């Protein structure tokens, strides 16, 4: 199907790091079922090195929502948290060889899911963080406007 790049189709049909994590150090969930996309990301963190040692995701959504989740997990796995937090939706889109314009919000959700998982880890471990780790407000339109 020409709607998506081969890479998107590959990550959609063979998602990496898909599944749940029972002993996650941080869990982030963004989007809402009403809009048709929910991503939940689980991270395992090495407390000493502040590195994401493992990551899993569950996604309810379209092909690109599943593909962007999968790609985002690949991009942050094994990386220091500080580096994972610099992951932009644009980087996810580029790594997937592009997304149709009306699917860009899926990549934004992926970025938000990573940040939400890190925020949850910080909250659970009383690690302070700044405003830049703000919470997804659950309104899909907000991100649509800001990131495109």
């Amino acid at each position: 199907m020409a709607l998506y790049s081969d890479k998107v189709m590959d990550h959609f049909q063979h998602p990496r790091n898909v599944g749940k994590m029972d002993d996650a150090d941080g869990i982030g969930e963004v989007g809402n079922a009403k809009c048709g996309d929910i991503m939940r990301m689980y991270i395992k963190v090495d407390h000493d090195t502040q590195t994401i040692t493992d990551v899993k995701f569950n996604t309810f959504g379209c092909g690109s929502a599943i593909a962007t989740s999968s790609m985002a997990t690949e991009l942050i796995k094994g990386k220091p948290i500080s580096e994972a937090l610099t992951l932009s939706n644009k980087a996810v889109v580029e790594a997937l060889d592009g997304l149709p314009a009306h699917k860009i919000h899926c990549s934004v959700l992926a970025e938000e899911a990573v940040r939400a998982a890190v925020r949850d880890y910080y909250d659970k471990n009383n690690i302070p963080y700044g405003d830049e780790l703000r919470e997804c407000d659950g309104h899909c339109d907000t991100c649509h406007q800001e990131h495109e």
Partner: protein
Amino acid sequence: MNVYADNAATTAVSDAALAAMMPCFQEIYGNPSSLHTPGQRAAEKLAAARETFAKYLNADPREITFTSGGSEADNQALRSAALLGARKGKKHIISTKFEHHAILHTLQALEKEGYEVTLLDIPPDGVVTAEQVKDAIRPDTCLVSVMFANNEIGTIQPIPEIGAVCHEAGVLFHTDAVQAAGHLPIDVQAMHIDMLSLSAHKFHGPKGVGVLYARRGIALTNVIHGGAQERGKRAGTENIPGICGAAAAFEEACANMEKNAAHLIPLRDKLIAGLTAIPHTVLNGDAKRRLPGNVNVCFEGIEGESLLLLLDAKGIAASSGSACTSGSLDPSHVLLALGRPHEVAHGSLRLSFSEYNTEAEIDYILQEVPEVVSYLRNISPVWDELEKGQRPHLI
């Protein structure tokens, strides 16, 4: 196996339709408006096609106008009736919430031009009642437009009853019969239909050809201005190949209607039974009062576009009313009108069949769909919450 299960979107052109079209490209290529022999040969083809449509709709050939498709026919029908109403000071139009966008968006345009529109609610079974129409008619109502059968959920509306109510009140009645034509018997006289739209590519005719039936005495308003084609009501050189293909396809569909329905209904019902056996799955629209080839279900906890893509990878071509397939943030207006919550409507699947589909194809779908649904549910956080009781099951 490759299964084309999206016949409500469009169909393959039949052999009969193609055979009727082919001579019109290089042999009978004249312009029907020309006086010379090549032109008059084309004019004869056009007249014959018009007679075919008139015959199977129980109309007069002069009541048949060829258009570029169902959407144009819908636009012209509504605009014509609206203008006739305005001349009498009647500017109220009644329609339903689950019409095709060709109707809904034309009505929105008319609202901006000062018309008042009442859209009837859709009962849970997807069948609007004549009573609802009757209750909504006002002294200033000029038009009622109710689709013959819904394009997404396939439910068949009580057209003769609605027509009778309209005629009793002296209100024009239009029906968008795009999904019904060639699949259900239509008699514009007996069903009290004043105007009707249909589209050839929904019954194995070519794309780009539609018909607007308008009862004699109803003055049509032009949507396309120009030459005097179609008695001055639709300008532009007639698409003779398309019109001949459309007529051949309509004749074939109407002649085989009972046979096709007898083939499709058991397949449809087998598929409905099999799909609704998947837990937390619901059929959209009444089980029996629906088009012979329409199946539409919602699976809870998954999203339609990913379902379509995975089915496509298995060779199954289907459709969904999810937001991602509509290109907006909202899922299908039809499923929302039916009362499905957003999160359920996102997980819809429409499978629509023609007489070309086989039982082996239904069996293949029944083998593949549960697997794909189960895979998507396994990776869905919504399903996870539903299963853990953190989110209530809605279906």
